[in-house]
C-alpha cells in the first residue's frame, strides 16, 4: 500500500491538493470495498419502483411520478446520506489511523475534504443511479390509457424529472455533510448511530414540526416561505413544488423563497463540513476542556 502523504512537490498548494487526492483515493477504496453500498442502491431502486408501481403516477407521466416519489425521497435520501456518512470520520479517529495520517503532511481540512468528496461521490452513485433508472422507466412506460383520442403531454416533460434529480443532489449532500459532522463528533460507533438517528428524525420531522408549532403560536403565515427554506427538507420540498410540481398548476409559484432555499441547502453543506473540520482540529482540546469541567463537577 502506498502510504498517504508520499506526495512531495514544490508548491504548497499542489501538495495540499495532492493530499486531498490521496485521502479521496483511499476513502474511495474503502467505499468500494463495502458491498453493502451496492445493496443499498438496489434496495433504494426497489423502494422507488414499488412506490411508483403502487402509486400509479409513473404510468401517466413525470410529474405524477415526482409527486409519488416526493414523500419517500424526503425520508429515504437522508437515510442513505446517513448510512454513507455516519462513520466517515469516526473510524479513522477511533482506530488511531487519523493520528498516523496526521504525521504526514495532510491538514485536517484536506483530510475532511478528501473524505467528504469520496463519500459524496459514493452517495451520488447510490442515489442518482436508481432515480435515473426510475426516470428511464417512466419515460418508457408513461402513456395515455387509450389511444383513440388525440393526446399531448401537457406540461409534463423529462426536463421536470431532471430538475427533480438536480434537487436531490444538494438535498442529499446537505444530509451527507451533517452525517459527516455526526461522525466527527461521535466518539463511538454506537454513539454515532444514536446521534445519526436523532439528527435524521430531527431533520425529517423536526423542522416541519417547528414550523407548525411556530404557526400555532402566532407566527404570521407570510413567514412560511422563509421558514420553510431554512431546513433541508423544507427547502427541498419547496423547491420541488416551485420548479417541478408547481409547473402544472396555474403559473403562480411562491411555494418557497427560492434564493433562501438554495442558500440554505448550501449553508447546510458548508456547515456540516465546517463542523467536521473544527471537531477534528480542535476536538482534543475540547475534550480536555470538557474533562476538566466534568472533573470539577464530579469532585
Amino acid at each position: 500500500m502506498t502510504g498517504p502523504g508520499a506526495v512531495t512537490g514544490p508548491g504548497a498548494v499542489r501538495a495540499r491538493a495532492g493530499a486531498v487526492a490521496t485521502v479521496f483515493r483511499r476513502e474511495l477504496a474503502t467505499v468500494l470495498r463495502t458491498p453493502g453500498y451496492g445493496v443499498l442502491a438496489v434496495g433504494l431502486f426497489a423502494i422507488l419502483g414499488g412506490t411508483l408501481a403502487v402509486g400509479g403516477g409513473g404510468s401517466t407521466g413525470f410529474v405524477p411520478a415526482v409527486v409519488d416519489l416526493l414523500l419517500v425521497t424526503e425520508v429515504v435520501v437522508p437515510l442513505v446520506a446517513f448510512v454513507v456518512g455516519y462513520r466517515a470520520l469516526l473510524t479513522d479517529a477511533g482506530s488511531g489511523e487519523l493520528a498516523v495520517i496526521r504525521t504526514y503532511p495532510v491538514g485536517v481540512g484536506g483530510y475532511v475534504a478528501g473524505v467528504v468528496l469520496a463519500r459524496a461521490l459514493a452517495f451520488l452513485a447510490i442515489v442518482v443511479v436508481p432515480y435515473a433508472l426510475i426516470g428511464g422507466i417512466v419515460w418508457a412506460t408513461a402513456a395515455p390509457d387509450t389511444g383513440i383520442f388525440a393526446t399531448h403531454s401537457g406540461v409534463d416533460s423529462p426536463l421536470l424529472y431532471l430538475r427533480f434529480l438536480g434537487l436531490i443532489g444538494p438535498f442529499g449532500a446537505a444530509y451527507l455533510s451533517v452525517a459527516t459532522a455526526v461522525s466527527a463528533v461521535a466518539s463511538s460507533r454506537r454513539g454515532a448511530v444514536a446521534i445519526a438517528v436523532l439528527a435524521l428524525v430531527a431533520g425529517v420531522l423536526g423542522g416541519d414540526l417547528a414550523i407548525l408549532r411556530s404557526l400555532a403560536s402566532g407566527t404570521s403565515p407570510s413567514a412560511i416561505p422563509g421558514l420553510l427554506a431554512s431546513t433541508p427538507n423544507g427547502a427541498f420540498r419547496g423547491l420541488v413544488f416551485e420548479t417541478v410540481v408547481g409547473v402544472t398548476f396555474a403559473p403562480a409559484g411562491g411555494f418557497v423563497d427560492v434564493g433562501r432555499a438554495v442558500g440554505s441547502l448550501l449553508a447546510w453543506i458548508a456547515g456540516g463540513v465546517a463542523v467536521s473540520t473544527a471537531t477534528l482540529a480542535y476536538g482534543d482540546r475540547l475534550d480536555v476542556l470538557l474533562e476538566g469541567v466534568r472533573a470539577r463537577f464530579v469532585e
Partner: protein
Amino acid sequence: MALFDPYGDRFGRLLVAVAVLAVLAGVATAGAYAADPSTATPDPVAYDDTVELGISSETDELMAGSARVPGVQVFYSQLQYVVGYNGVESFAATLDDGRTERQFGYPLVVYVETFDGGAPGVTDDGLFEAERSTDWVAADEAAYVVGSAARSPAGETVVPFADRANAERFAAEHGGSVLDWGAVRDRSFSVDSAATVRSMAPARWSEADERVADATAKGRSGDESVGRDTDGDGDDGDERSGGEADEIVVSEDAPTIDAAVAAAPPNGTVVVPAGTYEETVTVNESVTIAGDGARVRGDGNGSVIAVRAPNVTLSGLSIDGVGNRTRDPEAAREAAEEGETWDTNIQLGYGHGDAGVLAVDAPGLLVDDVAVETNASGVLLREGSDAVIRDLRVDGSDDWRDGFMGVTGIESRVTVTDSRFDGGRDGVYLHRADGSVIRNSTFVGNRYGTHLMYTGDALIADNAFRNAEFGGITVMTRPSGNAIVGNDVRDSGAGIQASGTRSYVGYNTLADNGLGFSTSSRGSLYERNVAVENEVGAHATTVVPSSRVVANDFVGNDRHAEAGPGALRIWADGDRGNYWEGANVGLHDPGERAYRPTAPVDAALHRETAAAAVRESPAAALLDRLYGTVPGARSGSIVDPSPASEPYAPERVDAAESDSEPIHPDWRRALGGADPRTEATAEDSTTAEDPTTASTGDTTTSIDTMNARKRDATDETASRETGSQETGSRETGSREPTEGSRRSAGAEARR
C-alpha cells in the same frame, strides 16, 4: 473491479471521465431549469380526435341540416387528452367553476374553430350555420361575435372569426357585438345544463299528464285536426265520442271491424263487442275503436291494425296474429330512391316491420287498454305519429332474438304510461323521438327495457325493469337533455347506461344487476341513485370527466364502482359526497377520509372487516396521500373526497335489499314540481303529504320551477335577466334543489 481500482493505472482517466460526466449532468440540469415546459405550444389536432365536451353535436337539428356548433380545443396542463368543447360558451363556462382547473390543470393552449370563409349565417330556426370552418386559430387571436341571432340547440352561442373585419360583417348582418377573447372568457352565457334538465323533469311529467288528458278526455280540437275536419260535424271541439248517431257497432251495423271503420263518420266510434275477430284493420279516418274484451286476430302476415289518420283511439282490444317481419326491404328500396337521410339504415331497420298496431303519420293516436301478443313490434309509430299509449300490454318472444320492440317510435313523440312489456327485444325503442315520456310502466325480460337513439329531452320515470338481458335503460348516441328519474331496475345486465350530454339521472333504484349505472353521459348530473347488491355499482366511462356524481348510495355491491381509462374522477360536489358502505370503517370520523372505490383496500372495506386494519397501515396512509395530487394526470380511478356518513335514502336501500315491490321515491316534490294536480294523479304519492314540507319545497325551488314550466322561459327570460349575474343564478340553480332534495330525503326517511 479493475476498472474501479483507486490504485490502478486507469484511475486517473476514470476520474476525468466522472468529472466530465458530472459537468455534463450539471449542464443538463441547468438546462432543465432554463427551459420552461409551460410554454410548449402543441398544434391543433383533428377535432374528431378530441374528447368532446360541451353541448351535444348529435341533436336532431344539428345532424339533419347545415347548422353547426363552433368547436374549441383545449390542451390542459395536467391532462393528456385534448379536450374539444362544442361551443365557445361551453368552454367559457368552465373557466370560472374551479372544478375543471382542479381536475385538468390550466389551459396551456386554446384553439377555436373560425368561420371566415365558410359562408356563416343563421338558419330559419335561428341556429348558427356554416358550410365549413376555415381554420383553427389561437383563442386570444380570434374575434368573437356575441349576442347575435345565431344560437345553438342549448342556448346562446358565440361565433369566432380569425379576422375582425369578418366578425364585424357577421355582426352587422345578424346582430351582436364583436369581442376579443378576454371579454368572452369573462362573460356568462345562458346555456342549458344538467341542472336545467333536473328542474324540468317534474314539468315533463305534468306535460305527459296533459297529453294523456288531452287524448282521453277532450275532443281532438287541436290545430292538426282542424284542417282535416273536412266533413265538418261542426262541434268537434268538445265531444270525442259524439252522440249515439256516431256509433257503429261491429256485427250489428257492419260485418267486420274494418268495414265498420270504413263506414264510421269522422270522429265517430266503432264499438267492438266481446269476441274474436279474425281480420286486419286499416284506419284512414279519425275514429275511436272501442272494444270490450274484443280480440283482433291477424293472419300472421303484416300488421293487424294500421292507422294512417290523426286522432285515432284504440281501446279495450287484444291483438294477436301479428306477422314476424321486423323490417321491410321494399321500403328500404323506396327510401333509397328518394334519397337517404343520415339515419336511413336504422329507420328502415326498425321502422318498417310488422306490428300489432302500425301508425304512420298518425298524430294524436291514443292506444288505451290494449294487449298485443307479438314476435315483431307491439306498437310501431312512424312519421310524426305522436301517440299516447296507456295501459298497453305487450307479450313478446321469450328469447329477445326471436322478437322485436314493444313500442317502436320513430320520428314520433311518444308518451307511454302504465304499460307492461314482457319479453321481446326492447320494451320501448325510440329513434329521433325528442320529448317522449315513458313512465309508470313495467318491463320484464327484454333485451333492453327502454332504448333511446338520437332522442333527447325525454323523461323516463317511475318505471320498473326486471330481468333485462342487456340493461334496463339505455340511451345511445349523443342526445341531450334526457331525464331518467325514479326508476327501479333489478336483476338485469345493467341498470342505466345513458350516453349523451346534459342528462339527469336521479332517484333511481338499481339492485342485483351486473352494473348499476354508468356515467357515460357527459356534462350530466347523477344524484340520489341507490345501487344495491350489483356486481358493479357504477362504472365511470367517459375519458375526461365532466359530470357530477353526488349523493348516491352504494351498498352491498361486489365492487361499488369501477373506472375505465381516463383522468381521475372526483365524485362529489363541493363537500357533499356519496354514501359508500364501508367507507367509514376505521379510526377516523365519518366523511373525514377520502374513499377510493377503485383502490384495492377501499374496495374491500365493506366486504372484509380486516381491510380496515390494512387501511390504517402506514403504507396505505402513504398511498392515500399519493393519490390525491395532480388529479388530471392520474388514470383510471375514482375518488370521493368526502364520503357521506349515512345513506341519503336509507329506506330505499333497505327496500332494495329485501327484494321488495318496485320503489319510486317522490322525486317530483324534491325537484320542486309539487303541482297539486300532478300529485293527485301520481301513483307513488300515496303517502300522507306533509303540507309544510311540500310548500317550503315549492318556495325554495320556485326559480327552477318557473324555468321548468316552459323551456323557452329558460332560454329567453329567466336566464337573460340573470345573465349579468350568472354566477349568482347558477349557485341558486344548484343549491336550491339540493335543499329541496335534502328535505325529501328526510321525508323519505320518515316514511
